[in-house]
């Protein structure tokens, strides 16, 4: 285990006081956790936080996944956020969904909608204790497909239509706010309302392939300000996964948990069973253990050194001297890490501007940390995102260029 955090005094949990202070010292089991079932995905989104695309041959088997669910039930983890990759491309996805629900583990799963035909939508509408969120990163096909790939907007809309038609209640449209769609918040709300769905917006992180596009896609300071105002005005009807707590340093605290929950109240189980502090931290520095090891998930959650380190409030560093520290608590650990900033310093999107100066002050030689976990598609993908330009596909055989190429016709 690599030490990733600045040294801190040993954790001493206070008695009473604010709940958020208790959360900093961790819980006996996560409130909820993210479980990515597969790295396989039909899409190749430019900002994929888990660099998904190809299935990993070591992914948990059906029996192993059932074992994890049994353990979550014993630990009284009452719901999981299931994602991927695209979780529904796992052939046992629907079985695992039923298995979890049958074991008092509610499921909220994220999907691009590829498998949500009318029959599946009807099945979901009949199932209690399941929540669906359809990912959409543009309120128009033009904005969405540039990032998520040609045709992905149409797929998502079809899935939303199917869910609405089946009478599914409380399904979500899940949006990652980017520089390109930040101006579409009202349009997203209108689109979501038109399906009787609920809008969920979350923060773009420089994680996975997100690191490659973060400079280009993360909202500008002006957009962050607008987003903050929009959340204050619309916050009650919009879910955020508490992911915008760094915006609280603009002034008023946003609804929800204004705290980094990594390793304290949430974590990630990845498709091969590795347990990371949070879904945005797939990197060996944030790897706490594996569910396949003796003692399983419970031992990882309760005994890993990394999580013990994280369950210890930050007491030093530049941020603790800032008057806004109580509101933003230094922001997002993963955002700092993958932009090469110190973990006890400002968030790269610090709304007081300290992030921008910290980014500017980075050593020119600095190589930002890169995850060695990459399941991105190796070859071209149908409809792949155009954000990074049109893909150029080198000819596989010389005659793909011209039937006469290489022929000496003399």
């Amino acid at each position, binding site marked *: 285990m690599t030490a990733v955090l600045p040294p801190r005094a040993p954790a001493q*949990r206070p*008695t*009473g*006081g*604010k*709940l958020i202070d*208790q959360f900093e*010292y961790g*819980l*006996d*089991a996560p*409130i*909820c956790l993210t479980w990515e079932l597969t790295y396989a995905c039909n899409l190749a989104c430019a900002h994929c936080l888990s660099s998904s695309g190809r299935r990993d041959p070591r992914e948990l088997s059906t029996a192993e996944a059932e074992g994890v669910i049994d353990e979550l039930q014993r630990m*009284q983890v*009452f*719901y999981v956020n299931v994602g991927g990759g695209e979780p529904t491309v796992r052939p046992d996805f629907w079985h695992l969904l039923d298995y979890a629900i049958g074991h*008092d583990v*509610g*499921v*909220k799963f994220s999907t691009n909608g590829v498998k949500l035909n009318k029959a599946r939508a009807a099945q979901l509408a009949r199932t209690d*204790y*399941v*929540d669906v969120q359809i990912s959409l990163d543009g309120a128009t096909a033009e904005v969405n497909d540039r990032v998520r790939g040609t045709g992905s907007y149409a797929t998502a809309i079809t899935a939303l239509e199917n869910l609405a038609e089946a009478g599914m209640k*409380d399904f979500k449209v899940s949006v990652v706010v980017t520089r390109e769609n930040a101006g579409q918040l009202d349009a997203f709300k209108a689109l979501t309302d038109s399906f009787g769905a*609920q809008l969920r917006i979350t923060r773009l992180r420089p994680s996975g392939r997100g690191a490659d596009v973060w400079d280009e896609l993360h909202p500008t300071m002006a957009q962050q300000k607008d987003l903050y105002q929009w959340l204050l005005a619309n916050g009650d009807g919009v*879910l*955020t*996964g*508490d992911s915008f707590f760094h915006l609280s340093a603009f002034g008023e605290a946003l*609804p*929800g*948990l204004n705290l980094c929950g990594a390793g304290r*109240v949430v974590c990630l189980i990845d498709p091969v069973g590795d347990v990371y502090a949070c879904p945005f931290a797939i990197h060996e520095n944030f790897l706490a253990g594996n569910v396949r090891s003796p003692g399983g998930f419970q031992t990882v959650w309760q005994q890993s050194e990394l999580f013990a380190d994280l369950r210890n409030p930050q007491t030093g560093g530049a941020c603790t001297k800032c008057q806004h520290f109580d509101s933003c608590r230094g922001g997002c650990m993963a955002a700092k890490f993958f932009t090469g900033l110190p973990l006890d310093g400002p968030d790269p999107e610090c709304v007081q501007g300290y992030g921008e100066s910290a980014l500017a002050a980075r050593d020119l030689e600095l190589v930002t940390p890169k995850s060695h976990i990459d399941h991105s598609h190796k070859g071209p993908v149908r409809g792949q995102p155009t954000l990074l330009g049109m893909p150029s596909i080198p000819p596989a055989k010389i005659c793909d260029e011209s039937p006469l190429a290489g022929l000496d016709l003399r």
Partner: protein
Amino acid sequence: MADTALVTDPAAGTSPAAGEVTIPADELPFDPSLPWQKSASVALRPEPFGALVYHFGNRKLSFLKSKPLVAVVKALAEHPDVPSTLRACEVPEAQHPAYVTALATLSRSQMIEKRSTP
């Protein structure tokens, strides 16, 4: 959010769980003289500071911020009313109003329910 409250409402604590179902609040004020119990669809998960409370029906999440309150919620079913429960759990008289307030919050979010048998 009242930081000193013994119980945290879902809205003030953290994101609600898998669903966002809103159940209309019980219009009747909380009556401590009636017999109460932890709701049948509620699970209590012990935590170092108290307990996490989860309602499988409305999927609401709440937190009990003291271990004595956890004991009170569990003991409700064995006593005819709230005051006798509090006495049985040796809650000091001066703290009874705070406990009644906490239980009223829990009844609004349906974490505890009236019981028909005395």
